[in-house]
Each structure stands twice: as C-alpha cells, then as structure tokens.
C-alpha cells in the first residue's frame, strides 16, 4: 500500500525526538506491532530513498511514529507540518508474534528501538498478558516515551549508561538478574545491544525475538540491500524481518 497520508500532527517532544501523527484509517486497520512504514520525507530526489519507521502507537485512525532526528531525512521530516501530505509505503515487514506459547513476555528496548514496543505492549495488554519492560538509554536527555508506556498501564524499568536516570548500566545488567526459563524476550535497539540480549538469552535458554533496524533501500524485498547474516544465509530485514528469532541470526 503506497499512499499520501495526512499529517495530523508533528510534535516536538524534547531534544532530537518527535512524534509524527498520521491520519490514515487503512494503515491503522492493517498495521501489526513490529511493522514499519517506509516514508518519503519529501517529494524530491534528495534524499532519494525512503526512510523506515516503526509504528509506535495506533489510536482509531491515527498512526503515531516516534522518531529521532539523526540526519538529513529525519531533519526534513521534523520540518513537515500539520495538514500536509506525506507519501508512505506500508505497513511493511513481519511483526512480533503475540502467540507466547505459555511464556511470560519480557520487552527490552534500547534508544529509539523502544518505538515498536509500545504498540506491541499494548497488544499484549489487550490479550490480557502482563509483561516485564526494560528500556535503556544513553543518558537522561535521551529518555523518551516513558509517559506513554505508563499511561498504557505498563510498568517500566529504566537504565541509562551514565546513570543520569534510573538504573546505571545496560539493559542486560537488569535482564540477567530476572531471566527465567519461562520467559520470552522481545528486543529492539542498536545491534550491539541486540547481540548482548541474544547472547544472554541463549545462555539462559530463553527464546528471544529481536527487531533489527538497519539501513534500507527499497523496504519491500527487491534490492537485497538490507540483509543480515543468519544460519540459513542472508535474510532481508525488510521482508523476512524486521523481527527474527535471535537464535537464527549470526551477530
């Protein structure tokens, strides 16, 4: 599905962080937690490629994207205004499975990788699952989204690398004290974090699904530019993922 979506709001949160709200009932109807929209930040040839963003939250026909300005594309996105239309391809990719097979979910997010976890957490709550939630950030300036998780009724433990907010350390420091064989971990964040979480889970024989956020070209499986190594050869993050069983991947 490729369409011009109405920008309902493009709100600055703090620092480099914004929430883009699109009004689009078709996307809202179809989207599943973990999926992404491939957004053309403006209709021009610079930047040329679309940019992928997880779906952060759905409310009726409103689709929220939580994003961090890190370069040209996200900067241009931050300048887009309410009432304008923006070209979106999606929802794309696979999703977090809410079939837990009796396991207790633990959601682990790092930095902007927390984005798909709100949507997933809300889905789990709808299905009457409780969960553990650990979110890690570099420092207090990067701590975002907590009010949204709290408002949805999720209990969050926060870590910062420098200890400026919450627990000082990495998400894995908290995770390793809690991991239990009845858990299933769902993680999204920078690759080094996902590797650490995945290693920890395999040590404890806990199943772990990770969502990979790498650089993309087409976003729908044809350019073969976004691949990640796995035991079954290279996997396309955009089409075979972004959510993978961590034990299948080669970090």
């Amino acid at each position, binding site marked *: 599905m*490729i369409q011009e979506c109405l920008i309902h709001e493009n709100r600055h949160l703090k620092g480099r962080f914004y929430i883009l709200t699109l009004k689009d009932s078709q996307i809202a109807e179809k989207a599943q937690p973990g999926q992404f929209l491939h957004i*053309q930040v403006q209709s021009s*040839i*610079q*930047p*040329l*490629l*679309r940019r992928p963003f997880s779906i952060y939250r759905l409310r009726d026909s409103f689709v929220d994207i939580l994003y961090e300005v890190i370069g040209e594309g996200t900067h241009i996105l931050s300048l887009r205004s309410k009432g304008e239309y923006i070209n979106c*391809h999606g929802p794309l990719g696979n999703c977090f499975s809410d079939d837990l097979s009796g396991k207790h979910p633990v959601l682990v997010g790092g930095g902007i990788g927390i984005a798909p976890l709100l949507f997933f957490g809300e889905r789990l709550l709808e299905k009457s699952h409780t969960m553990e939630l650990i979110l890690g950030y570099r420092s207090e300036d990067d701590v975002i989204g907590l009010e949204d998780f709290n408002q949805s009724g999720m209990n969050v433990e926060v870590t910062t690398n420098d200890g400026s907010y919450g627990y000082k350390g990495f998400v894995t420091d908290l995770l390793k004290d809690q991991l239990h064989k009845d858990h299933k971990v769902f993680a999204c964040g920078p690759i080094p974090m996902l590797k650490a979480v995945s290693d920890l889970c395999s040590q404890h024989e806990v199943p772990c699904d990770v969502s990979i956020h*790498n*650089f993309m*070209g*087409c*976003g*729908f*499986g*044809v*350019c*073969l*530019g*976004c*691949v*990640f*190594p796995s035991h079954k*050869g*290279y996997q396309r993050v955009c089409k075979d993922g972004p959510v993978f069983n961590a034990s299948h991947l080669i970090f």
Partner: protein
Amino acid sequence: MDLRTDIGKILLKNPVMVASGTFGYGVEFEGFFDLGLLGGISVKGLHLNKRQGNAPQRIMETPCGMLNAIGLQGIGIEAFSREKMPVLRKYDVPIIVNFWGTSTEEYEKAVEKLNDVEGIAGLEVNVSCPNIKEGGMTFGTDPKVLSQLIRSIRKKTALPLMVKLSPNVTSVGEMGHIVESEGVDSISLINTFAAMMIDVETRKPVLSNGVGGLSGPGIRPIAVKMVWEVAQRVKIPVIGMGGIMNARDALEFMIAGASAVQIGTANFVNPRISLEVIEGIKDYCLNHEIEDVKSLIGSLKMP
C-alpha cells in the same frame, strides 16, 4: 498514437522496461500492477548457480543516488526457471534474462542452460563483473576481453542478445562498436559507476566490499551523454538507462538515441514508477502531436 518500439528482434509494446537488479524476478511486483503493461522486464542478474552475494553493509545513500555492492546475490538459473518463469510466462511481456559469470566458461554454460528455458525473449549480458581467472578486472572494461567474451556467447545462442555496457571505460562508444561487430542484437547502458564512500570516523569504506556501483538521478546526465555517444557509433538499437525518475528523464534518453529505456533505482522509491513513465510519455506525444514514439529516437538537435 503508436508507442511500440523494437530492440533488435524483440518488439516492445512501449519503450519502458525495468532494469536488472531493481525489479527482483518480476514476481515481487505482481501486487503493484499488471506486469503485462511494461515494455519489458530485465530480471535480477543470474549466475549458473545460487549466489549468496556480499556481506553487509551492501548499500548506502549518496547525493541524489545510491551506492550498492549487493554482489549479485541470486537464486541461480535452474531455480529461476523452475520457480519464477512459470509465473512470468502468464504475462504478455518480453522477459530479458540478465546473466553473468566469473569466467568465459561460466558465461557459456549459463547461456547453454538459458537456451532451454521456455519463454525467454532475450538475454542481457552483464559484463560489469570481475573476470576472476584473469586477475579480477571486469570483462566490460578491456576491449579484447569483451570482444572475446561476446564472440563465445554469440556462438552459443540464437536468442536475441543484448550487451549491457559498463560506464567505467575511457570510450563507451568504442565498446559499443566492439560488441556490435560481434553480432549482438542490441546494447543496453549504463550499468553503475564504480564509486566509493568512506566513514571518516572509522576510516573504513562504508560498504563491506570497499567499492560499489553508483546509480540514481545523480548519474543521469552522464548516462545520457554515454547513450548519445554509443547511439552515434552503432546501428543496432540502444537501450538507455541511468537515473530515470520520470517521463521527461526517459525522453532525454530516447532523444539522445535510445530505442527504449530501463527504469532502475526509481523502482525502490516508487514501485509503480514505470507505469507513470509510460503515461507521461503518452502525454508528451499527445501534447507534441507525435504519432509514433519511434520518431523521437535520436531526434536530438545539436546546435
């Protein structure tokens, strides 16, 4: 109005084809539109065997373009013939198989296999890959190597043969002349420009392969000039590509001498772009009272 054009022995219902490596095996685009509306499809470059391609990082964005070193990941000719061709044969559209090898023998074996695949309209030889036996230089950059390769391929097949030229040469017109004299039916150009990006923090190349191929609108004016050069040197049809994003871009190539065009990188941004280009060419012809799109080919008015 007549949008038909021909590239050697292959008749196209319109001049808009899609470029190898940017349209998968065609079937990936079935959900976007009726593939039968296209002038032609050049599928992802095939090797005799399944190839896993390069390690990531494989792509990066550049000013108005992108750099790629996919490393020709592909399912191989047999799997293509078994899994993809039955689907593609349902559409009334010429299927051009882009293929490659790392030695002349591999190219020859690939051609022998492709000869037996039902429903292929023609072959497109990708010569922008390293000749591993002969030190890794790409086939398409040495005139002697290129002419020998094309001669041995030509002997092996009666299928219409298109050679896709590399732009990484001193005189692309000369290369066009060389392959024409080996009896090929048409010439497509350009493949990507050899290029590099460096991460100044790590001082490493951005792509794991070190170098990659540059494509997209940023290369278009160079591509147009190269198509113009080749079209002047050869009598066989030329298929132009490089950065086409809309109908006006496509028309530039035709006016420069291309009988048809291929859309590449633009498919990634807008999977329906080829249809928009076809419609745009139609509108242009209507507005300019052009009855036959072929009359545009090589109609450049040099000052």
